[in-house]
C-alpha cells in the first residue's frame, strides 16, 4: 500500500491506470464483437481489441524496461498487421455486399455447402 501511495501521489501515472483503460477498451470490443450482426461493426470491434493490446505493449515497455524499445516495435508491427487485416477484411465485406445485397454476418451461412 505504501508504494502505491508514493507512486500515486508522484508525477507518474500508475501502470494500473493504463491497464484498466485498456481493459475497458478490450471488453467493449468483445461486447461489440458478440452483439453486432453487421460485418463492418464487427471489424470496428476487432480494431478496438487490437488497439487495447497495443496500449499494453507500449505501457509495459515504458514502465518496466525504459531503456529498451521492444514493446514499441511490437506495437508498430501490430499496427501494420492491423492495417493489412482491415484491408483484406474490407475487400471480403465488399465482395459479400456485392453477392448478397447487404453486409450482415448471417448471409455467410449460405456461402458454400
Amino acid at each position, binding site marked *: 500500500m505504501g*508504494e*502505491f501511495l508514493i*507512486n500515486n501521489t508522484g*508525477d*507518474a*501515472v500508475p*501502470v*494500473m*491506470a*493504463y*491497464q*484498466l*483503460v485498456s*481493459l*475497458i*477498451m478490450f*471488453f*467493449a*470490443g*468483445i*461486447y*461489440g464483437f*458478440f*452483439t*453486432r*450482426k*453487421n460485418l*463492418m*461493426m464487427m471489424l*470496428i*470491434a476487432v*480494431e*478496438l481489441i487490437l*488497439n487495447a493490446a*497495443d496500449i499494453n505493449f*507500449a*505501457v509495459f515497455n515504458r*514502465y518496466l524496461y*525504459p531503456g529498451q*524499445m521492444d514493446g*514499441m*516495435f511490437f*506495437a*508498430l*508491427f501490430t*499496427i*501494420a498487421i*492491423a*492495417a*493489412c487485416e*482491415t*484491408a483484406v477484411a474490407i*475487400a471480403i*465485406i*465488399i*465482395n459479400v*455486399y*456485392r453477392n448478397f445485397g*447487404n453486409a*450482415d454476418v448471417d448471409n455467410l451461412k449460405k456461402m458454400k455447402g
Partner: protein
Amino acid sequence: MTEQIIFYLLALAITVFSILAVTSKLIVRSATYLLFVLLATAGLYMLLGYHFLFAVQISVYAGGIMVLFIMAIFLTHKPGTSVRTKRGWRIKSSALLSLAGIVLCGYIIITNGIRTYQFMERDGFTMQEIGSTMLGSQKGQYLLSFEMMSILLLACIVGAILIARKTKTTDHDTNETDQ
C-alpha cells in the same frame, strides 16, 4: 500533476467513446467514435514519450484505416439507416459476459498489479536509435520482422485486389454455364 490530468481526460474519452462505438445504432457514428478512441490512444502514446508511435498511430490508424472504413461504409450502407443487432437475450448475455470479464481482470490487476517500479524520466528515443533498431540485424534489432512485414503488405495488397475486383470474364462464364 498536469500529466495526470491529461491522462485522466484521455482515459475518460477512451472509456466513453469505446462504449459508444459498440452500442451506437448508426454505423457512421460508430466509425467516428472509433476515430476518437484511436486519437485518444495516440495521446496516451505521446504521454508515454513514444513520439514515433504517436505519429504512426495518427497516420496509419486515424488516417489510413479510418479513410478505408468510411469509404467501405459508404460503399456498403445507405447513410442514415440503423443497423440490425442480435436478439435481446444475446445482447444481455454478452453484456453480462463482458462485465464479468472486466470485473475478473480488474480484480486481478488491482490485487496483483505492478506496484513496485521506478518511473525513470527519459527523453524520447531519437530517430537514429529507432532507425538502427528497425534496420539492424543484430540481437534486439528488427530487420527480419521489417522485411517480413513488407512481404505481408505485398501479399495483402495482392489478396485484397484479387478478392475485391469485379471479374467480368468469370461472371460471364458462370452466367453462360447457368444458362
